[in-house]
């Protein structure tokens, strides 16, 4: 709003440029934008920003207004116009204008008093600056005191100055670019080293040598960034597999129930999130960003409830009969899918990310970590730790392990095995629900959601070694990383095939999985 206030009292903009911006064709618009930016006058900012945000409107063939909500300001004089007139037309911008506007606004903002604004402007210029921005950058550099902004600006200046006719400027620019970590710099430097026929594009050997040194430094940094990004995406995929498989690691791994309805429990968790989201949107739109906090326990409760119901009514009669369990749970999964389809419709539903889970944060120019994935990685880590504590430090965990390892003995010692079964199954289902809640933030939510995770889940549990939680963790992360590295090298389709082939071979060689359960177990 501060900029708005300035606009209202600042002196007028040149009417001709404003009129070109509003009524001219794209070329006229561009030159008018350049003119306004070239004046280096901050009072043009609201108009340029408004143009970018689609807030500039015209009336008839001469009046230009900046309309924000229900207030309007004359773009030339800066006077408020009340009431907002009718019959307005939008001024339309396309990508080409948007690019020019973003660069122009950034160049103007380099003179802003706030450090954050200047930093954002410098980052914006990094990608898009050309000769026209050079004076603004050079001017800003003489005044800038913040080292980070200075660094960015110096790099941008250097990449523009590479084309300078002056040899000393060029050498300086090439040397300065060694500190860069963008792919664009690599392209610029590589171009210097190219040959056309037998002649180098850059005739000066000293500049070429400097370029080679700088290129090596940039390459090194780019490679580090790329590997970091791959590892992150591998871990992210791994945690998603892990989330999907954790519940199954309990119901199948510990209890031995081949639960083909596991995917549907994930799906139910995702739909529970959807319901909570809708309730928030309807009744508490102000607190919308907090909905995941309510959705998590709700998804857990709903999925656990459905899981316990399934266990009590169907699965508890089938312990020790794996084939019947397989068939029954498959039938149950179809029932659940059709049930959800009847209630919510066959189409996908939209689960919106809360604001704090949108966007990402940049650790290097070529490594951006999306918040949603960072949050899910942290969340998965919490669940794994909590589950581990539950299994090793609580009475219920002790009972669960006892029943898994030797059911008749545990029963003989007074453990109520049916109750433990029920709770364990409920726990596994509840964790599936939590997985659904997390997956709804990055993928699609539809009745078939579970189908796409069930195979992966079994894959992870079997690979990790049935009955071993730690095996599941290693297997999930391992598969995620392997998948992502193959994808980077051979594409997504082949990566999926390669992983399946790998698992088939692995299970042939080592049927017990990565980690075999040690100790005296009794087969049920």
């Amino acid at each position, binding site marked *: 709003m501060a900029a708005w206030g300035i606009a209202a009292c600042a002196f007028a903009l040149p009417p001709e440029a404003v009129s070109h911006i509003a009524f001219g064709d794209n070329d006229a618009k561009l030159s008018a934008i350049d003119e306004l930016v070239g004046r280096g006058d901050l009072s043009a900012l609201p108009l340029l920003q408004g143009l970018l945000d*689609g807030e500039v409107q015209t009336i008839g063939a001469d009046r230009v207004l900046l309309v924000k909500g229900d207030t309007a300001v004359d773009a030339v004089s800066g006077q408020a116009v009340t009431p907002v007139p009718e019959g307005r037309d939008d001024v*339309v911008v*396309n*990508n*080409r204008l*948007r*690019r020019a506007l*973003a660069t122009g606004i950034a160049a103007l903002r380099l003179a802003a008093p706030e450090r954050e604004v200047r930093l954002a402007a410098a980052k914006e210029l990094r*990608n*898009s600056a050309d000769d026209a921005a050079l004076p603004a950058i050079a001017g800003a550099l003489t005044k800038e005191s913040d080292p980070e902004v200075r660094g960015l600006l110096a790099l941008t200046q250097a990449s523009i100055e590479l084309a300078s006719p002056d040899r000393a400027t060029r050498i300086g620019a090439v040397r300065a670019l060694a500190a860069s970590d*963008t*792919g*664009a710099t*690599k*392209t610029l430097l590589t171009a210097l080293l190219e040959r056309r026929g037998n002649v180098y594009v850059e005739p000066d050997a000293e500049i070429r040598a400097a370029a080679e040194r700088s290129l090596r430094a940039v390459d090194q940094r780019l490679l580090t960034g*790329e590997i970091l*990004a*791959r590892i*992150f*995406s591998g871990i*992210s*995929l791994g945690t998603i597999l892990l989330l999907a498989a954790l519940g199954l690691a309990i119901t199948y791994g510990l209890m031995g129930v081949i639960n083909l309805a596991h995917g549907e429990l994930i799906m139910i968790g995702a739909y529970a999130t959807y319901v909570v989201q809708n309730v928030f949107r309807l009744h508490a739109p102000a607190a919308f960003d907090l909905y995941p906090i309510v959705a998590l326990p709700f998804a857990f409760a709903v999925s656990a409830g459905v899981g316990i119901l399934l266990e009590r009514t169907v699965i508890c009669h089938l312990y020790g*009969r794996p*084939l*019947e369990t397989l*068939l029954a749970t*498959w*039938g149950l999964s*179809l029932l659940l899918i*059709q049930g959800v*389809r009847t209630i919510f*419709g*066959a*189409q*996908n539903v*939209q689960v*919106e*990310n809360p604001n704090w889970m*949108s*966007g*990402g944060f*940049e650790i290097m120019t*070529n490594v*951006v970590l*999306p*918040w*949603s*994935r960072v949050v899910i990685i942290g969340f998965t880590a919490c669940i794994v730790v909590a589950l581990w504590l539950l299994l090793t430090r609580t009475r219920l965990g002790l009972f669960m392990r006892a029943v898994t390892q030797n059911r008749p003995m545990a029963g003989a010692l007074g453990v109520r095995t049916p109750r433990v079964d029920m709770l364990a199954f409920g726990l596994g289902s509840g964790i599936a629900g939590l997985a659904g809640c997390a997956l709804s933030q*990055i*993928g*699609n939510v*539809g*009745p*078939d959601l579970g189908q796409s995770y069930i195979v992966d889940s079994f894959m992870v549990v079997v690979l990790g070694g049935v009955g071993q939680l730690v095996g599941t963790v290693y297997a999930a992360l391992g598969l995620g990383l392997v998948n*992502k590295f193959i*994808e*980077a090298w051979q*594409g*997504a*389709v082949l990566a999926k095939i390669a992983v399946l082939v790998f698992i088939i071979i692995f299970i042939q060689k080592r049927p017990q999985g990565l980690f075999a359960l040690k100790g005296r177990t009794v087969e049920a």
Partner: protein
Amino acid sequence: MQRRTFVKRLALAATLAAGGFAIAPTTYAADTIKVGILHSLSGTMAISETVLKDVALMAIEEINATGGVLGKKIEPIVVDPASNWPLFAEKARQLITQDKVAAVFGCWTSVSRKSVLPVFEETNGLLFYPVQYEGEELSKNVFYTGAAPNQQAIPAVEYLMSKDGGGAKRWVLLGTDYVYPRTTNKILRAFLKSKGVAEKDIDEKYTPFGHSDYQTIVADIKKFSAGGKTAVVSTINGDSNVPFYKELGNQGLKATDVPVVAFSVGEEELRGVDTKPLVGHLAAWNYFMSLKNPANDAFKKKWADYAKAKKLPGADKPLTNDPMEATYIGIHMWKQAVEKAKTTDTDKVIAAMAGQKFTGPSGFEAKMDEKNHHLWKPVVIGEVQGNGQFNVVWKTKGPVRAQPWSQYIAGNETKKDEPEKK
């Protein structure tokens, strides 16, 4: 349990399950003309196809309200092939041989069209296909109301090469792994080469149907784009688009740096996606909801009223898109042809279809070509806005004739521009 019993039970359960998905046809009076509606109402393509079923029902209701065809009401028979390509063929056969429908409106993906094609040719049925596709096909039994490559893909790429489109020099061709993206990219690759784009400046990538993890792809696009002005041509189909666009937004790849032009993303696919980070990405179609003309206003109003009356999901924010327009045009043209032929006999209707005209919601008069079973359509290119609508940045002066056999595929010079008569 013995293995054999198990397998039998499994098969039994599967049959029961499959049976459960079929939707029972509504019964009408005996004296009706039946038409089939063959769109996926579940699975990965449901995001795109469900509204086509609804708009078809709306058009039929509209025709019935004005007296039907040849004095009879049209009776729609809706089936759900569930994004399962072989099931498309089964359902098509059921519609033609059991329900004896006069025409079928349906299919979205080319793989589903390819799977029903033999059925329509064998039984001499009539299919109206409402979606842009890769061309390379011309069947006497199919009318293509969507765009051929020269009515969508080629103009879009030309626009991105132009000064206003950003003057792209490097190209990422990204698609779902099946026949439409593969063929379109083959055409585009040949086209780009004819424009002097070098092999190293084209990167072709595919993902499986339903793919949801686009981290690597987006990172690769970023890396590729460092080498010069880059544009992405996306032929991703179905619900994979949502995670793809989410990832683009999250990783901060803006349209001003790397514009993405999509051929299968319209208003409906962007429903619920936060489009603010996506402003400026493009789509090429023959119709946008944002087009301003009286025919479109009427169409939008009709659809909004219909969606509200039928309590369709999303009725609070009714959206129209290009394949809906194509479906709507297709049904009306079929009606006109039936009236001209005075019968629903397939061969006579096919003959009557040639040269049919209908002013669609795009505001242009669409014409069924006299020979090649494709519509003459205008091409419009739009940029995504913050509100999920498209803002038209380029369009052709008038309708363009379709070229199903692209000149950019070798061997097409000799192909005839009309279906082989049997």
